[in-house]
């Protein structure tokens, strides 16, 4: 029952000036005029970051290699190595690096591609004083979030602990929880749970569903005043009810034993409860590449095909700079399949042919979320 979060509740005046001053920015643009102007502007912002400049992508990557940076601000349209190439490499090598795109290109496609590759912000090059002010403010905020590390760390807590803490402190907060592709929200107002919501449930039903998730990420956001109350039970009663339900379902314990595909309660078999699923196959992550399957006659051949296909299309995504591969689905008159890669390994699912293409995709997203949780 571990949930990880990046806690965004920041207590003012707690980041020491020394920490903030260490913030380092790498500014990349082949236009020397822009570099000079923004080097000057960024150096002048109140938290006084250290600003380095590079006029080519290759030079920027070399500098990133030589010392740690907090923020990379990169243009897209550059000769030889363009901004998307720089982002692709930087994102892979430095996953914690904040990346901001600033470009003169006003094209929705490049914006989508940049966000798809994991940038934090996408800006069109400031054309007016107001634009420039907003750009600088956003950079400053981004760096402050980086610097105020004492109140922006990673925690591992159960949801029950979290809700108890928030309620006991009489807080008003919005707790946003994600579990793979599933998202939920719980509103707490002055120490009472007032509302909850998932994609298809509301109120107490949503609260119970969210508390049933075994792992995921949460974010504590400022409370919203005047949220319409749909939950009237006390938080004690709600948590007690959920704890009893989890105990009865045996869901309170995360199994630590290896997955046995033949056991009726195996996690792999649990995935076949999703509508339309005919078979499931998983290939464990490196270095073991354990193949496990349920309901499949030729698991070795299918796992080879799935592994090759996921590798091949992931490479293609890199080459086209279309972002990381999300999912592969394939259809035939007799059955459908879907493949996805994850930190846990590869997951392949066979579906009945009665499902439509969109249904297969959606179902696979939910199955993957369940598998990962």
């Amino acid at each position, binding site marked *: 029952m571990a949930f990880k979060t990046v806690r965004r509740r920041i207590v003012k005046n707690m980041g020491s000036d020394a920490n903030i001053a260490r913030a380092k920015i790498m500014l990349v643009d082949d236009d020397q005029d822009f570099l000079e102007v923004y080097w000057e502007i960024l150096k002048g912002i109140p938290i006084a970051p250290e600003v380095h400049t590079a006029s080519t992508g290759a030079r920027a990557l070399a500098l990133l290699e030589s010392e740690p940076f907090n923020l990379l601000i990169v243009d897209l349209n550059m000769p030889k190595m*363009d901004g998307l190439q720089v982002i692709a490499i930087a994102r892979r090598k430095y996953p914690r690096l904040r990346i901001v795109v600033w470009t003169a290109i006003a094209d929705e496609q490049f914006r*989508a591609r940049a*966000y798809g590759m994991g940038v934090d912000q996408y800006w069109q090059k400031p054309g007016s004083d107001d634009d420039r002010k907003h750009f600088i403010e956003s950079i400053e905020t981004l760096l402050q979030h980086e610097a105020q590390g004492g109140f922006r760390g990673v925690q591992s807590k159960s949801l029950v602990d979290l809700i108890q803490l928030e309620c006991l402190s009489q807080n008003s907060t919005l707790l946003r929880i994600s579990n793979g592709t599933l998202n939920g929200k719980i509103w707490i107002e002055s120490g009472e749970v007032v509302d909850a919501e998932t994609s298809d449930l509301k109120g107490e039903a949503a609260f119970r569903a969210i508390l049933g998730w075994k792992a995921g990420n949460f974010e504590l956001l400022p409370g919203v005043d005047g949220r319409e109350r749909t939950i009237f039970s006390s938080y004690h009663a709600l948590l007690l009810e959920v704890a009893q339900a989890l105990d009865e379902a045996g869901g309170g314990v995360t199994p630590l034993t290896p997955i046995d595909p033949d056991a009726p309660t195996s996690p792999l078999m649990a995935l076949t409860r999703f509508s339309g699923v005919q078979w499931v196959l998983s290939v464990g992550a490196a270095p073991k590449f354990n193949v496990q399957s349920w309901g499949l006659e030729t698991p070795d051949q299918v796992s080879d095909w799935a592994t090759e*296909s996921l590798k091949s299309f992931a490479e293609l995504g890199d080459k*086209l700079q279309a*972002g990381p591969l999300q999912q592969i689905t394939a*259809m*035939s008159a007799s059955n459908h399949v879907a493949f996805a890669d994850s930190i846990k390994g590869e997951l392949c699912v066979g579906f009945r042919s009665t499902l439509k*293409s969109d249904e297969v995709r959606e179902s696979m997203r939910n199955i993957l979320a369940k598998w990962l949780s």
Partner: protein
Amino acid sequence: MAVLKKFFSKGNRMRLTKLPSGAFALDRDGHVIVSTLPGSFPEAQMREIGQRVLEFFRGAQTAQVPMQELNVYYPSLKLTARNLRGGAIIFLAPQSLPKN
């Protein structure tokens, strides 16, 4: 000079390649038969995409789960392909960000 510099600055030179939008068909040997993709999109890259798609369909056949249609999802591109008796027709559609 400043005016001229402004005119010929990089704002007028597009170096980035846009994601292709359109369709192309391949025969069973991977030769491109027909294409509606922009002429600027390199044919070698078209052949490479085609090769990967054909390998996918052949792999399906080998794994005894023959497939007729393939969808590959990236955050900013969707690739759809149909098996045409050993060859394939491939559709490439750049994706935009969902509107809030």
